[in-house]
């Protein structure tokens, strides 16, 4: 089998002005992941490194650049799975941590699959992850603009997830669907 590292950078109505940045980012992530695979021989290392690369890049909805809740906060989630052992590590409601994917990988070392909320933040602190202080450092101007655009649509009475528009963000060009 020839080794492969395959990545995606999100699906949706990506605005044209974001296309080039997304392509640069996914190409870099594939290269970074592939280099890691060659370096360590570990597919887990490869996928973690590829995702970390995109979590640092504000062109992607993960880590720095994550979209915002109605309250203007970043709440992130991640998962990682080893196809050899079927072990998985998952985390949700993660705040102020740059690399949720690395936190998910650390969850694999516990007896559990999935940690969330207050518990996962306590776990992160115990595991030595940097919890950024002051909070809110992962919020980008673009994410703020996207939320304002979304709120304006709500104020105008538009129903974002009308049946014909589920998964589409074309009324809110800056927003992402996940």
């Amino acid at each position, binding site marked *: 089998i020839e080794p*492969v590292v395959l990545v995606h950078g999100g699906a949706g109505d990506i605005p044209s002005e974001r296309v080039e940045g997304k392509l640069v980012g996914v190409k870099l992530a594939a290269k970074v992941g592939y280099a890691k695979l060659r370096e360590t021989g570990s*597919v887990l290392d490869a*996928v973690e490194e590829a995702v970390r690369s995109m979590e640092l890049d504000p062109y992607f*909805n993960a880590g720095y650049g994550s979209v915002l*809740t109605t309250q203007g906060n970043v*709440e992130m989630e991640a998962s990682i799975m080893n196809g050899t052992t079927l072990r998985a590590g998952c985390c949700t409601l993660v705040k102020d941590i740059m690399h949720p994917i690395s936190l998910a990988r650390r969850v694999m070392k516990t007896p559990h699959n999935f940690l969330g909320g207050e518990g996962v933040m306590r776990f992160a602190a115990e595991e030595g992850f940097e919890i950024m202080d002051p909070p809110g450092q992962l919020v980008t101007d673009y994410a703020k603009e996207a939320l304002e655009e979304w709120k304006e649509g709500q104020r105008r009475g538009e129903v974002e997830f009308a049946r014909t528009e589920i998964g*589409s963000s074309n009324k809110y060009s800056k927003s992402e669907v996940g």
Partner: protein
Amino acid sequence: TVGAVAIDSSGNIAVATSTGGITGKLPGRIGDTPLVGAGTYADNLVGGVSTTGHGETIMKYSLAHDILKRIEFLGEDAQTATENSCKAMTDRLVGTAGAITIDRKGQVGISFTSKRMAWAYIKGTQLKYGIEQNQHQEETV
């Protein structure tokens, strides 16, 4: 959302997915990304999948698991299974999404019912990438 799937020369597969969610989500909302079988799945006996798109739709369809079960039980290749599953999900539930897949033979599947999905992969010296439907560009690395 971002994701990665990798396979080594021995057929070991791993998958990772990470996201900020959806703009304007309620605090406390959980999507597909952290759910095994929805946003992520890996099994060396079949393949690995990472998904992206409308989370509420993906989780109801268990998209990652559905793609792998098509490979396992219907004998579809990675590309066919990824296409068929994404299309069937959108036909049934309206919401759009995309997925990337590597099967146990190292074959790649990339498909999305959304307007765009950024993707890239390296196999040997070839870097392939795209973002529009049916766009496949290539570079040597």
